[in-house]
């Protein structure tokens, strides 16, 4: 039993060193996918049909195909394209971390854009009309009225998507990235002790996601005006209509 524990401890120490790689992929693709999704959402409500068509096609392609195939296509597939292979782009596309981030950005932006699109449709029309009625337009209306409601509506689903993304980063290990899963498979190749290593890796993902969940839940609580208890003091008195 003691031998098990020392092995798990030493494996965990190795895996912990791979945590920054996992977090890097998550952070880069999380930020880029969210930014891209914001653009896609704007396109989905554009007046002219072309941006709407682009958004729909984007969603259709990247939501409809497996992420792992997208990663393979970018990492292995683009290496077959001469002008990428021999061009300046090769410095980026030869890097498996870059390829993972790119694939995840494309794929997850499609999902996040759908979340934002649904939330946008759910922003009460009356709130927007109240903004327009007092003279708000364009960006101010978006920033002061639409966005605050949209964020609150989207946050639960968005949190879910971020948790999913954390787990998806493990696919990077299939194209040689030494993230948590990659290191775990390396250790197994040497030690053949599958269960302990995978358990230790799983525990690390659990920890990361527990942290993220807590963070996102805190944000949700912070934005939830219903929890902020106001100080209601003086009851109003008014002359009734005679």
């Amino acid at each position, binding site marked *: 039993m003691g031998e098990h524990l020392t092995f798990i401890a030493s494996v965990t120490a190795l895996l912990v060193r791979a945590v920054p790689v996992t977090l890097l992929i998550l952070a880069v693709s999380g930020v880029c996918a969210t930014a891209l999704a914001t653009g896609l959402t704007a396109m989905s409500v554009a007046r002219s049909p072309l941006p709407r068509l682009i958004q729909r096609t984007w969603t259709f392609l990247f939501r409809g195909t497996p992420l792992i195939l997208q990663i393979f296509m970018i990492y292995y597939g683009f290496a077959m394209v001469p002008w990428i292979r021999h061009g300046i782009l090769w410095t980026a596309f030869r890097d498996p971390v870059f390829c993972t981030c790119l694939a995840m950005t494309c794929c997850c932006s499609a999902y996040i854009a759908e979340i934002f699109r649904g939330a946008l449709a759910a922003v009460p029309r009356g709130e927007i009309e*109240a903004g327009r*009625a*007092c003279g708000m337009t*364009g960006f101010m209306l978006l920033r*002061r009225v639409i966005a605050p409601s949209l964020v609150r509506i989207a946050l639960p689903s968005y949190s879910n998507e971020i948790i999913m993304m954390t787990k998806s980063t493990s696919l990077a290990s299939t194209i040689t990235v030494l993230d948590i899963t990659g290191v775990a498979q390396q250790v197994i190749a040497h030690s053949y002790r599958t269960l302990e290593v995978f358990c230790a890796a799983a525990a690390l993902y659990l920890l990361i996601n527990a942290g993220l969940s807590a963070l996102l839940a805190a944000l949700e609580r912070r934005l939830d005006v*219903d929890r902020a208890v*106001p*100080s209601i003091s*003086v009851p109003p008195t008014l002359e009734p209509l005679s």
Partner: protein
Amino acid sequence: MTVPPPVLTATNIRKSFGDREVLAGISLEAREGEVISILGGSGSGKSTFLRCLNLLEVPDEGQIAIGDVQAPLARNRHGRLEVSDGRAAARLRMQTAMVFQGFNLWPHLTVLQNVMEAPLRVHRRDRDEVLATARSLLERVGMAGFHAAYPKRLSGGQQQRVAIARALATNPKLVLFDEPTSALDPERVREVLALMRSLAEEGRTMIVVTHEMAFARDVSGRVVHLMNGRVESSGSPAHMFGADATAAFRAFLAPAAL
């Protein structure tokens, strides 16, 4: 005595939704300090008409002016009327305010922030001034103790009183009320009507779409009865609720008299 200048001039407003003609050419002029009640059965077009006045709905035909500023309506290449200049439309709306049936307060802002939002962000007025105005308005509508409360925590009547304070915060030339008491239970209706009456008494120019006959009769200076998208009859309350009332308006009033 001189006649006060018109605050609103709406001429021959028409609007159809698909095949259904909702407004069949309505004209209305509101002079400074006037309180006009618009009455009519459901589907008579009264809310649509009100929403055309601040361009929340774009009429198919007609002209609207606030003061002497024309609403920026022009025909597009398909011949349909549309808002030709969004900024000009926004400037026009800045001169008016609207109180909605469903209150439509911004849920993520406190009562005080709701009232301060338009003068502060849209009109870019001085913060201290805006704060002072907001405080006195909330005091006025009986919501002084609720500055930090969020709208969700308030009753319907309280929300509507905050919405009225929000509407007054920019000191608009014209306040549009779209069935302000229809979503309230009877005891809350009274507090909102009392507030509206006091606004009328201080000389606010108001156009009120309402089902409250007592308000129309006792508070407004003019009553307009809409039927099938037209002005069926209009006049002073004494005239409209007196012996000269048209048969159609009497028929409209009849259920209320039971």
